[in-house]
């Protein structure tokens, strides 16, 4: 086989798998707008009947608070573990690292019973706090790797200039660490936005607090086979993450693929 033919074949294989990868997504869109009629009324119906305005608002609130709190905590913990030498730091890092593999399934049942006794089920706090905990495990791991890559001379220079460790962190390291922080923000946003099991269990009676994915599951319960409505709903909840992904795919991919690797 000559090089030209080989080259053509390789691109054809890639194109085939690219088509397979988007096919169900194209199907979602085609069904939702009822091609070839290009009728957008399903979105309006789904939006109203599925109460997606309220559910998206809940998702935005839960995701925003979770991501911001987790980012601040992760940056601080990653700074400590990446740049400071203190007794027990190695053990502490391993403790956070262990959290990377803990599946939601292993903690969701005890969380339900303990949050219920504490009166935190059916509340934003009951959704946010456990997701901050899950995000912090990855965030600390991720930010530690970034802070370790910062040249020590930079830290020493800041210290000689009289900057406290707090000032050094927020005025020197965080501004130059924006790419690493952006990746962390994107990933925790996606995970929190897409999380389904936790809201399903924690938001068990207050319909007004349902997040978007949870809303979709109830919407499916009441419109079992009305695919154009269901697809419109699916599109509404998936679109925010997909749009951000299309613009920042490099950060998404790099982050998700490195999470399971180094050290």
């Amino acid at each position, binding site marked *: 086989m000559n090089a030209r033919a080989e080259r053509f074949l390789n691109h054809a294989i890639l194109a085939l798998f*690219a088509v*397979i990868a988007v096919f169900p997504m194209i199907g979602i869109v085609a069904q939702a707008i009822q091609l070839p009629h290009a009728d957008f009324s399903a979105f309006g119906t789904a939006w109203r009947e599925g109460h997606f305005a309220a559910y998206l608002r809940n998702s935005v609130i839960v995701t925003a608070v979770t991501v911001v709190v987790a980012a601040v905590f992760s940056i601080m913990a990653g700074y*400590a573990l990446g740049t400071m*030498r203190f007794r*027990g730091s190695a053990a502490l890092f391993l403790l956070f690292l262990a959290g990377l593999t803990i599946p939601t399934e292993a903690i969701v*049942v005890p969380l339900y019973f303990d949050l219920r006794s504490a009166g935190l089920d059916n509340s934003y706090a009951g959704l946010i706090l456990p997701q*901050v905990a899950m995000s912090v495990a990855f*965030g600390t791991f991720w930010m530690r790797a970034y802070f370790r890559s910062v040249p020590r001379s930079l830290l020493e220079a800041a210290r000689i200039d009289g900057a406290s460790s707090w000032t050094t962190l927020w005025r020197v390291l965080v501004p130059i660490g924006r790419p690493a922080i952006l990746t962390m923000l994107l990933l925790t946003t996606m995970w929190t936005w897409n999380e389904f099991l936790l809201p*399903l269990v924690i938001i068990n009676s207050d319909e007004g607090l349902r997040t978007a994915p949870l809303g979709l599951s109830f919407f499916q319960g009441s419109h079992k086979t009305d695919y154009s409505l269901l697809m419109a709903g699916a599109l509404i909840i998936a679109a925010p993450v997909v749009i951000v992904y299309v613009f920042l795919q490099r950060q998404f991919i790099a982050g998700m693929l490195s999470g399971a690797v180094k050290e």
Partner: protein
Amino acid sequence: MTTVARRKTPKAGRAASDRRAARPGSGPPGEPGRIGWLYALPALLVYGAFLLWPLARGAQFSLYHWDGLGEATWAGLSNYTATWTDPSLRGAFGHLLVLIVFYSVLPCCIAFVLVAAMSRTKIRGLTFFRTVLFLPQVVAMVAVAVAWRWVYSADGPVNTVLGWLHAIGLPDWRHGWFGDFTFALPAVGVVGTWVGIGLAMVLFLAGVQKIPRELYEAARIDGAGAVREFFAVTLPGLRRELAVALTLTSIMAIRNFDLIYMATSGGPGDATKVPAYEVYNRTFNTGEVGLGCAIGVTLAVLAFAVTAGIRRLVEGKDA
């Protein structure tokens, strides 16, 4: 261990003070030391209270029989033995094994062979292909489930194509896939293959680019054919990526709640029950909280073992 050894053999003079300087907690003057704990504290508190503590509580619950309402009675390890003596649960773990093949082994093998076949040429438009192939990873699983329920539906695309094949004389292969006792589990598995294959291809494509061109040239000068080249250059060069892909995809199979809940609810019958679904089902539908927790703990151990095991496999060969 090394610090203990150091303390046992103290040496006088400068050497000792050098060693003290390298000890954690006493860096150069002005370097922050113990304050590190303060920085780590907020993260540690939330992490401890809402991840580690529930994990420990889950382990505790798993030792009791409890319906979630009344008195709990001591169960010892019987909830754990039930995970392989209860036929329905044994079935669920069996389904997990089948799904690991579909979610992890199949996508990695297919992607590996495809990418290896491409390793001889430069790919144009790599960014575009990467973006598209990776897309299934970022779509909420609940939305993926809705999309695939349509793909498999009575007059969805799969049955439509099978209908055409039937029209040209082939047997009628049309099914209600997610509702069929024989085909529901493989149908779920195919969704996993679809999600995983893009991830594996993206990883391997990136890895192949990093293998030095000279290795391929050297192999070709030595007269190696495509197959020899695959085993001598591509496979060793992609070992790390292979490990990452296997880890990520098998963890995906283990944490397979959203898709099962949305697409089949474990049905028909027990046909697509998996441990991740049984954690929820046993706790909230059949009132076996202890058993639900035991399955959850088992999944956590399994996820940890898979991650550690695959990594050891790769690093062990490196050493």
